[in-house]
Each structure stands twice: as structure tokens, then as C-alpha cells.
């Protein structure tokens, strides 16, 4: 049996080529993902354990403490006194204070070195031990910074900036630019620097002042003396830091394990994302594979009937087809895995060449990745061939006697249509239920999503039925192409199942793409509305990575001529009557110049230190009324009485609760500013003012001055990047679908070679034979694209109904230009997919066709 199957596969290898390619691509995608993430996981773990070399126990601040500091609370940390105590603990060889924070370095043109604000860090140089050096850094020129006004840079950053020891370097930590002297240039094993980040070193005292507070360090790295275990040291450290808020101690091993866990979690997220796209591609492949085996079985009706006639059982016939599928699956999966290895290498160099330095360790090939990738390929192939194999078994032995090998009678579509209609009905009902029920948003989303999925399955089942009217609608267009057009139309309706399966494969990718396109476009316009509706200011100033800025930025901006009003907004950690609504502090005397605020009651602008203004939503939620007295707990822990002075209509861009910054002054640590909003004097807004503001801030590399359009564009760019990446990943399934069209057209040409030969004999020229094939391919592609865009738009509409309640400015927008591109792409796909089949058809010899009588 195996031998017969193998021989059949070999005999049909050209006809199986496209099927194999589809399985191969799917498996390669899966294998590439698995190998890439396994390799990255190993590489990152290795480099992370390097980061903890020479550390036994580390004391760190908890994550919550950093957030509190951004909201005006005094940060937690290790005081110099505690540092001293830790250093004197029994069994401690050295105790090194650790500080780290966002630090940008400017090049000569005032641009941030490293491009993006991610991975640009600053730290402290902390000499320890007998050698009085910091073992983490090795200086190649100059020396370590020893006081305020001095910095050291890692070698790559110094080179990128063109800086040499002794030069003045523009550095910024919290916004305003600092002109520092470059004391030294170093190399380091630091993971962040290794992966392309920049590192600026200060001496510990300066770093404390910049990143936390004088005399306070973010953490301590302790090295145990010989004879003291990590665990022993940890116990002693834990006793020493007992009662200190926001501090925790861990052994290096724990930290390595934590990091490993984090890396693995990140990798598994990545795995899930990529694998789900691979899943879509494989799902699309199912249609192609099923098509192929259906056609192969149909073409071999007589042969299979003969097998049955001479005594093969139904099960044997089924099995012989399935064995063929297994052979196809195994061959393409093995090749696919190898291609996947190449893919993961390619992925790494692609990321590396775009600036992300990834560890360069050898590929990690795990048994799991081999087994799962191969299993996926084989199972998909066999599953897809299962129905055709069952059908093969149903061929009656008498079929062998039939004199003509006319194509087998088409099975009726009645059952299929009934099933499809049922699915569509259930899906529609679920969607209606999800839209109109009064459950929680989560429940609604689930019902709606389920309904959409079921409805989509229904539509896929119904495609053969839909194909007739839709393709029928192309008739006027096709008849412009004369006989070729007419024949193409008839041919595409000839086997509705096959046309439908081929078009469906294309539809799936396009459904997802268009749904995503609509939702994202709508989100973008919603965000634009939100950003422009609430804000009246001309400029918004913020740190490139959105960490808070120093209060001094506000004062500097206010001095720029041509500015009418400016205020920083501060996120304040304030408790009002025991509740913690979002509270923003600002200069409320200029409130109406910077924001659109619709007052509902009382006073909203120019608040006194003992007044708060709340949005209508917050007022309703917390049952606060104008004139009501409330107790306010400030960031430093002190309390005061205040009055609800007024309410305003809440909206995008406006906080839930507003206080004047005078209420906070003296009660916050450092007064970190989130953003500074600036209104230009009448007629002054423009690029000149913008560069004046930048100038006033010393052209700080990390501060961005954005107009409203800049703000929108930066959102849009980020959203678009994600969108295009997802399009790219979905592109894989489109590629498989294109292979499917090629496959179908090649099969059709093969099946109809006699008919085409006859047409050639009676005078259809090569050009028009080609055109006939091309038009059929176009009809299928366009049909699939239209289905996909239709279904996608519908899905997006349903999703929009869910988004709307929690996003007031969301309004459905169809990205017509993108749809135009999709449609154009479908035309290109149709023409490209037909290239090879059309060429084959045109080369068919009229004589051969007639002679095979």
C-alpha cells in the first residue's frame, strides 16, 4: 500500500508542488518562531547571568515606589547610613550603591544619541574594594567621574557623538539640559549597552541627586566574603533592612531566576503572537490541501474504482489516499523545518540591522520544536486530505467500467447550504444578542466575538452559493473581453466548491486585514478627536519617554517671548475623602486658555489652594456636590480641608479631578511635571516659537515640543507601525492563499487540457487562451478579496459597537485608500497567480488533446 501511495505521489509531484509549498511555508513559520524564541531565550538568559556576576545579594526598591515618586511622594531608597550599615555586616566583602535612571545624551546637532528614548540610561560609578574601582566598567581613556559636572560615556555612545575626553557633553535627565565635562570613556558587559543602548555614568553623589535624592541610592549590590553563602548573607541583610519601606533583598540566584522567568514570559508572549499568525497561514493552507486532494481523487476516479473492482476495501482506498497525504506532509514539514531555521537566522539579522542588538548565540534546536513543527505539518495535511479520502472510498467499482472519463457528477450543495445558513443564523443571533444585551462589556464582547466567529464559518460554508451571484455581477466587465471573458466566467462557476475554497483562502487573510484596518483607522480618528477636542494649547512639552520633567522647565518656558500662557500638569498622589480619583494639579488661572472646559456648576478656573473641581462623571460616582467640604490627603501625608468649588463636563484630555498647584506646593517631593501645555500669544504660534522654546530648554535632547499635529502624528506613527507589522505577519497567509490560486489554476488547466486543445484546434489563439486563464484567476482573487473586505468591515463594525461605550470619540471610519490597495493587490495576485498556469495552457498542443481520444 505504501509503495503504491509513494508511486502516486511521485507521479503527481508537479501537481503536488503547490500543496507542498503551502505546508512548507506554514511549518517554516512555526519552526522559525519556535527556534527563534528558544534561541533568544537562551541568549538573553546567558547575558543576564553575566549582569549578576560578582553579586551575592542585591537590595532594590520595589516597583511601586518609583511610581509614587512620579506623583510627588518622597521616593524610597537606601540611605547612605543604611548603606554603611550594610557594608559593615558580617560576611560582606563589598557594598556598592546602585542608581539608574533615564539619561539622554545629545550629539552635536542636539539630537538624542541612540535615536529612541528606550535603552538610554544613566548610572553611577561606585568604586569598591581594595582597588577602589568599579569592576563593572573598564576605562579605555580618561578616568571615572569624581564630582558634579563630570560624566563618563560608553565607548559606542562617545563614538556616535564624536566626543573625546575633555569635551563638553550635553546631557539631560529630567528635561533641562546639563553641560558636563567628559571625564572618561569605558567599555562594559552591561546587557543594555550590549544591545545598543547608551550609558552615562555620574559619580554616586551626583547620580543620587539626579535620579533620587541626595544621600539616597536606588539599591545596593553586596558581595559576600569567602565562606559566606548567598543565603546566609540574605538573612542578615533582611534583618538589617527590616522596617524600611519599599525595599527588598534577593540573592543573585533569585534575581537571575526572576529575570529568566521574565525573559521566558516575554518569549512565550512572542511565541503566542507569532504562532497565532502561523496558525492563520496553516488554516488557509487547509483549503489549498483539501482542494488538491479533491482534484487528485476526482482525476483518478477510474483508477480508484478499478482498485475497488479488483477487491480493495473502502478502507484500503481511504488509507491509500491518506498515506499519500502523510508522505506529502512529512516531506514538506522536514523541508519546512529547515527553511524555518533559516527564517529564524534571518529574523535575528533583520532585527539587528534595525538597531536592536540581539545576543549572537548559536541556534537552539530543541526536540519540542522539531516534534511540534513536524507534527503540525503532517496533521494539517492529513486532516485536510481526510474528507477527499473518504469521498474516494465512496467511488463505486462500476465507475471503472464507464467508457467516458467525464468529471464525476457534482454533489448537491443543498446540505452544505443548509449548514451554512444555520451557522450564519446562529452567528447573527449571537451578534444581535451581544449588541443589545445588558451584560458586562466582557460578556458582550464574548457573545459578539463568538457570534462573529460562527457567522464567519457560516459564510465560508456558504461561499459556493455566494459565488454565483457575485461572479455573475462581474459579467458586464468580463464580456468586454469577448470569448475569453465568457469562458473565464463559466469556468470559474464550473466547480463552485473549488472556486469557493480558493477564494476563501484569500478571504481569510483579507478579512483580518480589513477588520484591523477599519478599527485602527477609527481608533486613530477617535484619538485625534480626543486630543484636539479637549486641548486648546498650541504646544505640549514632554520627555521623549514620558518620564516626568523637572519643575524648572515650566519657569524656563514661561520666559519665552510670545507665550500667552503655560502650565505644567502634575499627577498628584492625592486622596480625597478616602477615594483616589485621578487628580491633576496645574496653574488653574490659565486653565481656560489651555483646555476646553465646559463648566457645569460653581467655579472651575482659578482655584484657591483649598478648592477642588471635579468632572460630572466623578461627581456622580463619588457623590460629591458643589460646595461640599472634603478632606484632602496630600502626597507628603499631611491633610487639609477643601471645598468642591465646581463641576465641569468630563471629556477626553481632561482629568477626573483638578486642583491648583498651589495646593500641593510644599507638600510634594521634587514636583515632577508630566507635561507642559503652552498657549502662544495671538499670531505668534509657529515654528519660530517652537524653536525658541527648544532653545530656552537648552535644546535638550530628551524634551519634545509638539504641536497638536505632532502629537497626533506620533500616536499615528506608533499605531501604524504595529498595524504594518500585523499586516506583514498576515501577509504570510495571503502568500499561502496566492499559492492556492496558482494551484487551482494549474489544476484546472491540467483537467481541461483536452478542452483547451479543442479550443486551440478550432481557432482560439494563444493570447486568448492565456487571457481566459488569467481572467478566471482574476475572478477568483477579486471574489475572495471582496468577500474578505466585506466580512472584515462587518467584523470591524461589530467591534466598534463594543469599543464605542468606553471611547466616546470613536466613530467607524473605513480606510478607503487601504481598501483600494487591497483591491489592487487582489488584481495583481490574480494576474501573478495565473502567470505559470496561463503559460502552460497556451503551450498545450491542440493535436495532443485531440489524439488522446
Amino acid at each position, binding site marked *: 500500500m505504501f509503495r503504491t501511495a509513494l508511486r502516486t505521489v511521485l507521479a503527481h509531484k508537479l501537481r503536488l508542488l503547490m500543496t507542498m509549498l503551502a505546508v512548507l511555508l506554514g511549518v517554516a513559520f512555526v519552526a522559525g518562531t519556535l527556534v527563534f524564541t528558544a534561541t533568544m531565550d537562551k541568549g538573553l538568559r546567558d547575558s543576564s547571568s553575566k549582569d549578576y556576576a560578582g553579586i551575592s545579594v542585591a537590595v532594590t526598591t520595589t516597583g511601586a515606589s518609583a511610581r509614587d515618586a512620579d506623583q510627588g511622594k518622597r521616593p524610597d531608597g537606601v540611605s547612605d547610613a543604611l548603606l554603611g550599615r550594610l557594608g559593615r555586616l558580617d560576611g560582606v566583602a563589598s557594598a556598592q550603591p546602585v542608581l539608574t535612571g533615564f539619561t539622554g545624551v545629545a550629539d552635536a546637532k542636539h539630537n538624542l544619541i541612540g535615536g529612541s528614548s528606550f535603552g538610554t540610561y544613566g548610572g553611577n560609578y561606585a568604586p569598591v574594594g581594595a582597588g577602589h574601582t568599579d569592576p563593572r566598567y573598564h576605562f579605555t581613556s580618561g578616568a571615572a567621574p569624581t564630582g558634579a559636572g563630570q560624566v563618563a560615556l560608553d565607548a559606542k555612545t562617545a563614538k556616535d557623538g564624536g566626543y573625546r575626553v575633555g569635551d563638553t557633553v550635553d546631557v539631560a535627565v529630567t528635561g533641562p539640559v546639563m553641560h558636563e565635562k567628559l571625564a572618561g570613556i569605558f567599555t562594559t558587559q552591561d546587557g543594555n549597552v550590549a544591545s545598543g543602548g547608551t550609558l552615562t555614568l555620574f559619580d554616586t553623589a551626583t547620580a543620587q541627586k539626579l535620579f533620587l535624592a541626595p544621600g539616597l541610592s536606588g539599591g545596593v549590590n553586596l558581595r559576600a566574603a569567602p565562606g559566606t553563602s548567598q543565603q546566609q548573607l540574605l538573612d542578615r541583610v533582611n534583618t538589617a533592612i527590616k522596617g524600611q519601606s519599599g525595599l527588598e533583598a534577593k540573592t543573585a540566584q533569585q534575581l537571575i531566576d526572576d529575570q529568566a522567568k521574565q525573559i521566558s514570559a516575554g518569549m512565550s508572549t512572542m511565541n503566542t503572537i507569532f504562532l497565532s499568525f502561523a496558525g492563520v497561514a496553516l488554516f488557509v493552507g487547509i483549503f489549498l490541501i483539501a482542494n488538491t486532494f479533491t482534484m487528485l481523487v476526482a482525476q483518478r476516479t477510474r483508477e480508484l474504482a478499478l482498485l475497488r473492482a479488483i477487491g480493495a476495501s473502502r478502507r484500503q482506498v481511504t488509507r491509500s489516499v491518506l498515506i499519500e497525504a502523510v508522505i506529502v506532509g512529512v516531506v514538506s514539514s522536514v523541508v519546512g523545518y529547515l527553511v524555518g531555521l533559516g527564517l529564524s537566522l534571518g529574523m535575528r539579522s533583520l532585527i539587528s540591522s534595525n538597531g536592536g542588538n540581539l545576543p549572537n548565540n548559536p541556534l537552539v534546536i530543541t526536540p519540542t520544536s522539531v516534534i511540534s513543527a513536524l507534527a503540525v505539518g503532517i496533521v494539517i495535511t492529513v486532516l485536510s486530505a481526510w474528507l477527499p479520502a473518504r469521498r474516494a472510498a465512496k467511488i463505486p467499482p462500476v465507475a471503472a467500467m464507464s467508457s*467516458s472519463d*467525464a468529471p464525476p457528477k457534482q454533489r448537491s450543495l443543498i446540505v452544505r447550504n443548509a449548514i451554512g445558513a444555520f451557522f450564519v443564523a446562529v452567528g447573527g443571533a449571537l451578534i444581535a444578542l451581544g449588541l443589545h444585551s445588558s451584560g458586562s462589556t466582557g460578556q458582550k464582547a464574548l457573545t459578539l466575538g463568538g457570534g462573529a466567529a460562527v457567522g464567519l464559518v457560516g459564510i465560508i460554508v456558504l461561499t459556493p452559493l455566494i459565488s454565483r451571484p457575485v461572479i455573475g455581477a462581474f459579467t458586464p466587465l468580463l464580456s468586454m473581453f*469577448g*470569448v475569453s471573458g*465568457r*469562458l473565464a466566467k*463559466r*469556468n470559474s*462557476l*464550473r466547480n463552485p466548491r473549488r472556486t469557493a475554497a480558493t477564494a476563501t483562502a484569500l478571504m481569510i487573510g483579507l478579512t483580518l486585514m480589513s477588520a484591523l484596518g477599519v478599527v485602527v483607522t477609527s481608533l486613530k480618528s477617535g484619538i485625534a478627536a480626543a486630543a484636539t477636542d479637549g486641548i486648546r494649547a498650541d504646544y505640549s512639552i514632554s520627555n521623549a519617554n514620558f518620564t516626568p520633567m523637572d519643575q524648572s522647565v515650566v519657569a524656563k518656558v514661561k520666559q519665552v517671548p510670545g507665550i500667552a500662557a503655560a502650565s505644567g500638569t502634575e499627577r498628584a498622589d492625592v486622596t480625597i475623602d478616602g477615594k483616589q480619583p485621578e487628580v491633576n494639579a496645574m496653574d488653574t488661572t490659565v486653565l481656560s486658555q489651555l483646555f476646553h472646559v465646559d463648566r457645569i456648576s460653581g467655579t472651575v478656573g482659578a482655584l484657591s489652594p483649598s478648592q477642588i473641581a471635579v468632572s460630572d462623571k466623578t461627581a456622580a460616582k463619588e457623590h460629591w456636590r458643589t460646595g461640599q467640604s472634603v478632606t484632602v490627603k496630600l502626597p507628603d501625608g499631611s491633610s487639609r480641608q477643601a471645598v468642591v468649588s465646581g463641576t465641569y463636563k468630563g471629556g477626553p484630555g481632561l482629568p477626573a479631578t483638578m486642583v491648583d498647584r498651589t495646593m500641593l506646593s510644599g507638600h510634594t517631593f521634587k514636583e515632577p511635571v508630566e507635561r507642559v501645555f503652552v498657549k502662544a500669544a495671538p499670531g505668534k504660534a509657529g515654528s519660530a516659537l517652537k524653536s525658541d522654546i527648544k532653545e530656552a530648554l537648552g535644546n535638550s535632547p530628551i524634551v519634545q515640543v509638539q504641536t497638536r499635529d505632532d502629537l497626533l502624528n506620533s500616536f499615528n506613527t506608533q499605531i501604524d507601525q504595529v498595524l504594518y507589522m500585523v499586516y506583514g505577519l498576515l501577509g504570510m497567509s495571503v502568500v499561502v492563499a496566492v499559492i492556492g490560486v496558482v494551484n487551482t489554476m494549474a489544476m484546472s488547466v491540467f483537467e481541461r487540457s*483536452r*478542452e483547451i486543445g*479543442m*479550443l*486551440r*484546434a*478550432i*481557432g*482560439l*489563439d*494563444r493570447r*486568448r487562451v492565456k487571457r481566459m486563464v488569467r481572467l478566471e484567476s482574476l475572478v477568483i482573487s477579486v471574489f475572495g478579496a471582496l468577500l474578505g473586505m466585506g466580512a472584515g468591515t462587518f467584523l470591524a463594525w461589530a467591534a466598534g459597537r463594543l469599543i464605542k461605550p468606553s471611547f466616546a470619540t470613536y466613530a467607524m471610519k473605513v480606510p478607503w485608500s487601504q481598501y483600494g490597495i487591497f483591491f489592487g493587490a487582489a488584481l495583481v495576485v490574480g494576474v501573478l497567480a495565473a502567470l505559470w498556469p496561463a503559460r502552460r495552457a497556451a503551450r498545450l498542443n*491542440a*493535436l495532443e*488533446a*485531440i*489524439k488522446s*481520444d
Partner: protein
Amino acid sequence: MTTTQPPFATTGESSAAARATALTKVYGEGETRVVALDGIDVEFSRGQFTAIMGPSGSGKSTLMHCMAGLDAITSGSATIGDVELSRLKDKHLTRLRRDRIGFVFQSFNLVPTLTAIENITLTMDIAGRKPDSQWLDQIVDTVGLRDRLKHRPGQLSGGQQQRVACARALAGRPEIVFADEPTGNLDSRSGAEILSFLRESARSFGQTVVMVTHDAVAASYADRVLFLADGRLVDELVAPSADRVLERMKQFDGKGRTS
């Protein structure tokens, strides 16, 4: 004929619809070399219904294919009207077949997705010509398919399908119609219908018809019968009767038929 037509070589004579002179066709080389046609001289006069007979492998189909521009000839010449085929490239050959030749094959004559009437007018559709509706009516009535015109080939019997094929072959008023065993797959009654139709088209409409057949009765419908053996024209009967054809065929049986 439009001006885009190729410069057909003109022989000057145009009494014959088609003509072969020293037509030779050789397949393969060396060991597998087969001389399918060995210097054939033949003329098919206008309005004449010719049957070609001969043992299997004698070259009947090859002769037809060469005369119809479906197969390249090795040496000699073949002309349709006054056009020399051997000088034409594929593009012009295709146009020649389309405009000046009609075909009826043994089976698989029709495009399964087109209705009967669409099949009949297919050649003219390809040529972009409007069918002559009077002529079309006449043909449709002659083949007796008026009530079947909207049917697809799958809904027609074998005999009906062959009649549609005949109608298509004639619809474009070609110079010559070639039919290779057009009744080979039919029962005698259906076969008789086809043959009567071919004879009728020659007699009433002056259509030149060349038909390959193995059946003496079928051959007896023709105006003359040519006998082929081993790639050579060996005999000719004018106004044949089935008995005389059978008589002549028996002489070949002595040499042994291969099928």
C-alpha cells in the same frame, strides 16, 4: 478578409478547396522513425464529400491533421484554398483554422460550460464575427436541434452532441470541414443522422467535407472514398456503395489490421 491577414502564398489555381502535393510526414528519428505519410498527392474539390479509409495506422488521422494545419508537415505541400500551410506561423495557422476550417472530432467536441447554441457560434465569437442568422437557422433546422439550443453538452445525448459539433463546424461557412471518425462513438441510427447531415451540407450548400472513417456504411454516404495504406494513397472509389467499399477493405485484411 481584413488587411491584417498575412500575405498568403497564392498558387493561382483555386478550383480545389484543399490540396496536398508530395505530402510527407515523418515522426521520430533513427530507430523510432515512422513514415506516417509517404508522398501523398490529393485534391479535395469544392462541394465534394470525401471519405478516407484504411487500416489502423495507415496515416488517415495524420493526413487530416496535416491538411488542417494542426500538425507540421515534413516535406511537400498542403494548401487550403490558395494558402500554403507550411509557410504559416502558429498565429496565422490559428486564424486560418478559425476562419476557413471546420472540425468534427470523434468525441470531446464541445465546451461543457457553454450551451449548444453558444458552442455552435463559438468560432465566430472567437473571430469576433456576427453569425449570419439566416444561415444559422438553416443549420439548426437541418441538425434538428431547435428545442435543445439552451442545453449544455452534459444534458445532450452523444448523437445530439455530435450534431451540435457538426453545426458548429459549418456555422462559420468554412472552406472545408474535417471530421475524424465523427460517428465512431455513436449507434447506427445517430450515426446515420450525422452522415446524412454531412452529405446534405455538401449537396445543398456546396460544403467541402473530408471524413475519416472505419465504417463502410459511413463511407458509402460520401461522393468518393480514398484508401490509404502505409502512408500511401492506394485506391479511390467514386460514388461508392457500402458493398463495394467492404469489398475493397477486405483486400487490406489480408495484410492484417493492427486494431
